[in-house]
């Protein structure tokens, strides 16, 4: 259960090896010990994350999850829920993809759409079914400001995030009255292993800052958060920028 002051006692990390997922668990663990389910492919990185979170005070359970496998989400959610209620589920998996390749390689586009859009919607549906039954819980979906107005430099990635964002925003509305809520998180450029080697964008942020925004968003019962907060106003400006101008912006 999430208590009166917004502290959960269990956390499911889907894409549990992502920097944001790990940072979120560690941020919660600075307050209290809790049960953390790390759902990810069986890799050395997953074991390392499990050990790291155990060291930080978590009671860790690892569960297999593969975004390329259509049967995986249902199995993953069932396995995670077998250990007790899921208070907060963070959907944090995704790929950035290679923008050059994605411009022309249809297979790469299909793969990115599967991992970044199709799989998250399936996971979201399975999670919603489970959480509706338990009558409580928060689903946190990692969207991106890139989805708000996809631009030429990474529009495929942006479009998958736009789809994910629309899905989870709609899911939030469909869950009103069930005790379950959804928090859509829209970070700007996050310095992490996913973006290693890329140049910082304006208003770049960190996994820790995103984690902080998630914890406080859950605590306050928010539906959408931007990280950093100023992104909200930047994106609102960009959304209304005329196309001809938008295209020429160095972003």
């Amino acid at each position, binding site marked *: 259960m999430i*208590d009166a002051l917004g502290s959960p006692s269990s956390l499911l990390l889907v894409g549990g090896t992502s920097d944001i997922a790990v940072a979120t668990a560690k941020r919660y663990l600075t307050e*209290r010990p809790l049960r953390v389910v790390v759902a990810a492919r069986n890799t050395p990185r997953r074991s390392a994350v499990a050990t790291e979170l155990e060291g930080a005070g978590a009671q860790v359970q690892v569960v297999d999850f593969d975004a390329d496998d259509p049967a995986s989400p249902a199995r993953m959610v069932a396995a995670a829920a077998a250990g007790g209620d899921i208070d907060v589920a963070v959907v944090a998996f995704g790929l950035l993809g290679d923008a050059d390749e994605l411009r022309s390689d249809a297979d790469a586009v299909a793969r990115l759409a599967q991992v970044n859009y199709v799989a998250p919607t399936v996971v979201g549906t399975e999670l919603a079914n489970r959480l509706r039954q338990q*009558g409580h819980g928060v689903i946190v979906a990692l969207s991106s400001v890139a989805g708000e107005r996809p631009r030429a430099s990474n529009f495929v990635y942006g479009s998958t995030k736009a789809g994910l964002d629309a899905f989870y925003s709609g899911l939030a509305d469909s869950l009103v009255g069930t005790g379950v809520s959804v928090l859509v998180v829209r970070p700007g450029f996050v310095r992490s292993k996913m973006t290693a080697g890329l140049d910082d964008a304006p208003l770049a942020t960190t996994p820790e800052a995103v984690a902080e925004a998630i914890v406080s968003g859950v605590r306050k019962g928010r539906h959408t958060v931007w990280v950093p907060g100023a992104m909200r106003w930047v994106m609102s400006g960009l959304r209304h920028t005329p196309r001809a101008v938008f295209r020429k912006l160095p972003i």
Partner: protein
Amino acid sequence: MPEETLPAPHRSHARGGPLQGAVPLTGWGRTAATPALLSPVRSDDDALAVLKGHSPRGVVARGLARSYGDAAQNAGGDVLDMTTANQVLHADLETGLVDVEAGISLDELMNRFVPQGFFVPVTAGTRYVTVGGAIAADIHGKNHHIAGSFSQHVRWLDLLTADGQVRRVSPESDADLFWATAGGMGLTGVILRARVQLKAIESSRTLVDTDRTPDLDSLMTLLSETDHLYDYSVAWIDCVAKGKRMGRSVVTRGRFAKLDELPAKRRTDPLKYHGSVRVSAPDVFPPGLLNLATVAAFNELWYRKAPKRKRDQLQSIPTFFHPLDAVGGWNRIYGPRGFVQYQFTVPFGQEEAMREALERISHSGTASFLAVLKRFGPGNPGMLSYPSPGWTLALDIPVQKGLATLLDQLDELVVAAEGRIYLAKDSRVRPETFEKMYDRLDDFRTVRKQVDPDGVFTSDMARRLAL
């Protein structure tokens, strides 16, 4: 609670299906709402029917929802509204033994029996609690140091257990089940009826002494030295005052007046009683209405207004016992985010821990109205019963940034002092901290496992604390 006849909730426990007819429920603190199917219980059969067709998420009973947190909530499952089972079944006006349905309120018991010369054996700071809730939380009142807690005045109770049986349980017939149910927060089954020993009174007026103490030391000394002279005793502490004035309080202590202690004009109708007329708090309060400045100003005024020392003042039952009940729905004053009550106890000899806790609270800048301090007498065999010999402090705090950490730290202080927090007020303690507070928790779990092996009776609180 619902007066009109509710349609039987349409049960839908299909996989992932929405819970048809579910309503959001909270406790008095208005935090962490969760939806559940709320079914009115008018008879044993009503309760049994819900138990038989219960949702996979289980069942819990709910009284007047005056517990602050999630004790009477059950996310995604069934909740029994007991307030519709509220009859007096039998009353013996010689002995003061009454058999009642569990959903009857202490308010109603007073309306019925004060004019007949009987008061409830123990009352909370509000009389809008049910007998079932009073047993399930084993509530204490201002007379704990003399009379113990509510369950000590219960001769037997009828308990609907998970197997569908109704058992008459008394401290003699089945001590384990009785003392697991007393204070057991509804987790052993549904209390359907109980026999309660009322307290004989000659008048409906109390004789009250008021003392003002300038700090915590003088307060504790006063209570230690003279509490035994009074049936009822409580102190209101200003939690905002710091430094030398930390712990300044107004102490009110008293007992029921005897007939010949009433002024002549009252002697003709000594048992005249009517609960206070309730005005409702307005629905919308500006957030931030209660800030440190307004609360400090209120507390200052309240302290100055109280007499330094006053003796034998006649007060009505509502004025002496239930001042907060004069404003219906005052819990809304804390705004949409709700509030928590922190109530803990530390044993005698741990006065330093109490001082330290007060110091941290007054320095935290959390705007709390008055806190209530009391000296407990001996505890009872209730496995999760809260009162134990020592000092108890209770205070309301609006939900705000940093509160989770402050209270976690206070918990540690309380555990180190071998104290505990009160489940009826709790909405946020950590399970592993709670375990350290109740040394009979394992006994409770053993009894619960015996009467309810599948854990059919469960609540948000039970899940949160892995009870």
